[in-house]
């Protein structure tokens, strides 16, 4: 049972374009939604995160949009650069568990063409 579904599996964007990655979750108890970025041969790194009390969070060129009623959230990368080429994972957790356990999506491989 995949509790967090991520799409698309892969994405090719031209330099300067907008990259959009979507995630949907099932468990309404989830209340923390981070995104991780992973370069080849490296471990994932926390990129940005959001809680359901806000609909959008922006950090530089990276924005998370959150739709609580649809149980969906998405990552937007504005002005995409070749250096953004990586695999992106969304995740979800419920803070009430007090465990730090994260449920990850399947990942999206982004390629930004120069």
């Amino acid at each position, binding site marked *: 049972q995949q509790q967090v579904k991520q799409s698309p599996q892969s994405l090719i964007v031209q330099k300067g374009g907008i990259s959009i990655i979507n995630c949907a979750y099932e468990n309404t108890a989830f209340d923390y939604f981070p995104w991780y970025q992973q370069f080849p041969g490296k471990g994932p790194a926390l990129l940005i995160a959001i809680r359901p009390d806000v609909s959008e969070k922006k950090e530089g060129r990276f924005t998370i949009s959150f739709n609580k009623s649809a149980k969906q959230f998405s990552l937007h990368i504005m002005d995409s650069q070749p250096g953004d080429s990586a695999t992106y994972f969304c995740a979800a957790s419920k803070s009430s568990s007090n*465990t730090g356990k994260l449920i990850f999506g399947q990942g999206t491989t982004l390629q930004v063409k120069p």
Partner: protein
Amino acid sequence: DAGITQSPRHKVTETGTPVTLRCHQTENHRYMYWYRQDPGHGLRLIHYSYGVKDTDKGEVSDGYSVSRSKTEDFLLTLESATSSQTSVYFCAISPGTSGSQHLYEQYFGPGTRLTVT
């Protein structure tokens, strides 16, 4: 990589042999996690620890055991390796404590690529 190392970085082993992977941190964080990463599955939690000698299962714990005798070390053992355990294994640490939102900010090590033949 946030003061976290994994060893070995690469290992090839035969089916049926025991394997132990080590995660070492220099951050003195209480919470540590073991994940496996497979194409099409993202990262899946195997086991986690919330203190010395305190561990619990994740979503894919069958065939794995863990131990944590010191704050800085978290060991993952495959008692009898199978080909289905061929994967990349990541350790993660969290600076948070119980009830803290920082508990969900995890920092990952560089990974161990394990091949079971």
